[in-house]
């Protein structure tokens, strides 16, 4: 994949106008991620709107990054962290989600700390490489691997438990 014109280098700018349409094309992906990420707290589309506002600001300044997907998801990450849902401590969102009677997936993901949620979803839904996840969340790749492992194990146990409870009932 080559970038034309003066934006050959990784991380080089994309002229604002040119990035607008590809960004619009990624909106469904941002919405899916936001919905899977934030079953409680900020409304998912609100996160996407905050993301796009920031993206649009940056576009006007012609600062959009060449790896558009990593850049947009990093903006969504910032919006998420700034929202109440992103700041919760481990499992704090779980009781609220359980009360809200959310679907199995929402309850399960709510038992994870915010960072683990994000790592699991970027790998699982977005099929990002570990390096892209590290860039998106601005953390070392070792952290991506260790948290991914913890997230999967926790989700596995939570869902296994749920299945067992359903059988008992």
């Amino acid at each position, binding site marked *: *994949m*080559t*970038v*034309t*014109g003066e*934006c050959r280098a990784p991380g080089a700018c*994309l*002229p*604002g*106008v*040119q*990035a*607008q*349409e*590809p*960004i*619009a*094309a*990624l*909106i*469904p*992906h941002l*919405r*899916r991620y936001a*919905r*899977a990420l934030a079953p409680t707290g900020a409304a998912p*589309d609100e996160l*996407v*709107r905050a993301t*796009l*506002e920031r*993206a*649009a*600001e940056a*576009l*006007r300044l*012609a600062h959009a990054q060449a790896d*558009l*997907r990593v850049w947009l998801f990093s903006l969504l990450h910032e919006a998420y962290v700034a929202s109440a849902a992103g700041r919760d401590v481990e499992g704090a969102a779980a009781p609220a989600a359980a009360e809200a009677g959310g*679907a199995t*997936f929402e309850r399960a993901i709510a038992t994870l700390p915010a960072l683990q949620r994000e790592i699991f*979803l970027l*790998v*699982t*839904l977005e*099929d990002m*490489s*570990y390096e892209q996840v590290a860039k998106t969340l601005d953390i070392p790749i070792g952290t991506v*691997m*260790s948290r*991914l*492992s913890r997230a*999967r*194990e926790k*989700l*596995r146990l939570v*869902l*296994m438990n749920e299945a067992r409870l359903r059988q008992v009932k």
Partner: protein
Amino acid sequence: MSPARPVEADLQAYVDGRLDAARAAVLEAWLAAHRGDGVRVAAYRQLGREWREAYASVLVEPVPRELLATLQTKAKAPGPRSLPAAVAALGAAALIAFGVSLYLAPSSASPIVQRAAMAHAVYAAEVQHPVEARSRAELLAWLSERLQMKVQAPDLRRAGFAFLGGRLLPGDDAAAALLMYEGQSGQRVTLYWGPEFRQARETGLVYAPGERGMRVYYWLDDECGYAVASAELSRGELHALAQMAHEQLEK
């Protein structure tokens, strides 16, 4: 000699299909001998499938106008709005882009066209995981169960296209399936199965051109709707493949 205990990061990479062949082989030997880890890997893969399935429908939802408007009103950059260079440069994003614009465009063709084009745009662009990691027989049995009809993969090797695999997709009323094929120079063609588009009156092959090279041939029968899509083939090439699939599925 028993294989060495793999590091946890390798195990995770294996789950995601991101481990190179040599290390994957070592790890598989370990998994064969250590049932606990094998169960864990299978469960992790299952998690991935479940999450992708649970949220797949969001990708084909129309984007709320407010969101698009946010982008457009805020970014009042000067200059023309045609963007071929950036679109070409952005690879996967661009492929999804024309899927979306096709989805949004009004059309007189069957709605299966938009669905199939969207599915093609999203999944054919994926290099790592265009399809589910399953054997052909297992995959087709699983898809048949979910679609409640016999899902088959027509043989397109005569035209130089090998079967890559497939995946389950959400539809409005029922599950759908996407089978993927690859030509010798990496061109991808998908066959979409949408049982919700079935109709009593059978159609023949119908051509529906999309934007930026996306082409679809579809046909509907009393059991299912089928659509063959590609963004890289000429109309003639795609027609030959669609005909081959049609003959095998309608005999």
